[in-house]
């Protein structure tokens, strides 16, 4: 635990970014990102893209002694600390760094470790015997009314509860209550056979199954000191970019649909379906579940895969360009998205929000570039950022990322090495940690291995640092714009609820 206090101080001062906080019986873990690009105080202006990778730094990722860190050689580093709690408590980090609050409530719920001085002592993931009795924050005021929504929503979405307090149509406060999809993932992973654990890891968050499987596999490989064959590394990136494409296409359509512009959803859903069908033809599964496994890939690219993907990229690029023009040229649609659901750059930086939520609010961070992992160090791609932080900015980040993913798929197909796609993992005991960029943001995976069994593992969804910002973004907007704000975040429920 050496350096714990100093690290917490750096978190509070903004010199480090919280990557994760999780527990095990008798100890609490903390992972932070050091040396991340600072907040762009002046901003880079609209839609400025920064090329990746940046100038390489000599120091590789550093970790606690004995922890293998799956990372590249550029930019930021991951620091992982373990603090034993023999008395069952530790000083709460959320006293000085609010982004840790829900994580600390969760560690208390799941492992009984008490954070001393916790600012909010209500349970978070544990609902207890009376799930309908939850002490929402008190509301006072003559003209205020409350609107409870969920956990069963009107659309086909995951379960969660939103408690709106409104003054007329204006949202004064949104309070979230999550945990409905809590499936005891960490308890299932503890002691599981590696093959079983990998299947569970790929089902923590179905829309990001490739990203989760990849994060888990990379953490496992770091723990064993193994490296997958080169072809597997490139195929993993191919699957990851297809997943990003499919999800971003679905989101752009979905956001516009929530502004009552169904035409965009109809067109984007067709493109998304084409991506999924191509993924199925290439890797044997529409969502590419269980394709990425510890040691490499479970499946090789189908024989006609490269030709199919080449055709897909050309088709999506042409048709999507027309849809972008449609979005850009429809004033009534932008009337809904511009200036709606603003996340300030300061909040995005303090919460270390990843993905489009962070990048739309000026946080220039992408795990593919920094800390970075192969093969992205050998691929050319831009990481778009904007500074407005509204729904419109989050749409544009996705639009730019779709273009970048198409570029990446082409490059990967061009340079795909031949050879085996899977190598046997050596049986070793150790710990590994990895950070992988999913479509939603950075997924953190930590695993402790013993032979072919997982002793304990933790996977942290990017939504942990995005959900709280949605509460902030909704404030002051009309309640009718909430679906629009929510879809522009598209946070994970299952991935968060573990």
């Amino acid at each position, binding site marked *: 635990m050496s350096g714990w206090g100093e690290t917490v101080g750096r978190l509070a001062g903004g010199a480090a970014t919280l990557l994760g906080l999780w527990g095990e019986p008798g100890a609490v873990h903390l992972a932070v990102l050091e040396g991340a690009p600072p907040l762009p105080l002046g901003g880079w202006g609209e839609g400025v893209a920064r090329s990746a990778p940046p100038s390489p730094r000599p120091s590789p990722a550093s970790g606690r002694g004995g922890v293998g860190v799956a990372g590249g050689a550029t930019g930021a580093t991951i620091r992982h600390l373990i603090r034993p709690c023999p008395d069952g408590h530790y000083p709460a980090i959320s006293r000085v760094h609010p982004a840790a609050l829900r994580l600390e409530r969760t560690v208390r719920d799941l492992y009984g470790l008490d954070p001393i001085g916790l600012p909010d002592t209500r349970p978070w993931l544990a609902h207890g015997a009376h799930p309908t009795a939850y002490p929402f924050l008190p509301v006072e005021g003559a003209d205020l009314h409350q609107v409870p929504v969920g956990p069963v929503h009107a659309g086909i979405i995951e379960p969660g509860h939103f408690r709106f307090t409104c003054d007329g149509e204006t949202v004064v406060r949104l309070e979230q209550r999550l945990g409905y999809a809590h499936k005891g993932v960490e308890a*299932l992973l503890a002691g599981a056979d590696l093959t079983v654990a990998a299947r569970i890891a790929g089902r*923590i968050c179905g829309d990001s199954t490739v990203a989760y499987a990849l994060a888990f596999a990379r953490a496992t490989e770091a723990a064993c000191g193994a490296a997958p064959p080169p072809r597997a590394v490139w195929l993993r990136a191919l699957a990851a970019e297809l997943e990003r494409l499919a999800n971003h296409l679905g989101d752009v359509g979905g956001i516009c649909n929530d502004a009552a512009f169904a035409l965009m959803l109809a067109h984007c859903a067709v493109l998304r*379906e084409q991506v999924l069908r191509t993924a199925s033809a290439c890797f044997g599964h529409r969502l590419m579940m269980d394709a990425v496994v510890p040691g490499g890939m479970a499946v090789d690219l189908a024989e006609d895969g490269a030709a199919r993907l080449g055709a897909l990229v050309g088709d999506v690029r042409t048709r999507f360009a027309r*849809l972008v023009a449609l979005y850009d040229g429809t004033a009534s649609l932008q009337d809904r998205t511009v200036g709606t659901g603003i996340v300030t750059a300061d909040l995005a930086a303090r919460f270390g929000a990843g993905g489009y939520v962070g990048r739309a609010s000026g946080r220039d961070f992408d795990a593919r570039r920094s800390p970075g992992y192969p093969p992205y160090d050998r691929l050319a791609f831009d990481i778009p950022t904007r500074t407005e932080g509204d729904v419109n900015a989050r749409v544009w980040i996705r639009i730019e990322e779709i273009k970048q993913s198409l570029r990446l798929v082409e490059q990967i197909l061009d340079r795909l090495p031949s050879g085996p796609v899977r190598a046997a993992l050596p049986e070793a005991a150790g710990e590994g940690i990895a950070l992988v960029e999913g479509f939603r943001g950075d997924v953190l995976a930590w695993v402790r291995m013993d032979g072919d069994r997982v002793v304990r593992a933790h996977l942290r969804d990017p939504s942990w640092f995005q959900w709280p910002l949605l509460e902030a973004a909704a404030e002051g907007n009309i309640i009718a714009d909430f679906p629009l704000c929510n879809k522009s975040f598209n946070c994970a429920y*299952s991935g968060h609820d573990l």
Partner: protein
Amino acid sequence: MFRTLLSGLRSPLAEPPVADPELAALGAQLDAAARRRLGRGLSIRAVDAGSCNGCELELHALSNAFYDLERFGLRFVASPRHADVLMVTGPVTWHMREALVRTYAATPDPKWVVAVGDCGVGCGVFAASPACVGSVAQVVPVDLTIPGCPPTPARLLAGLLALLGG
């Protein structure tokens, strides 16, 4: 915008509208069965009782131009009070149990429940979890199961057809 709208009218979005013959046959049977059984159509309410979101993505896909669920008289509705069918996904978590029971109670008779996906059918990889009650059938009566992780949209359509006894 008008150019995009017009081009959509001139040529279908997903060409051909029903690319796969299996799907075409399914659709025709489904249509006939839905009419025979219900006169007009079938209203479906999706309930996520703890799914990983994989099944939800494929339920969504049923509405895209390739599958276009509504042409068979099937549609997703926003409230269980408007629904004939509940399509329930996920291993039922203890935290969603009450919500699922209440949603079932809010659905008017006659009603059918479809357990969707390996988790809904048999709890999937989460079977050993103390945080999960179990499969959907352990919480509400189930009329039909559609396995798969997640089931493809074509498989979901085939399942709905079986429900209608087509």
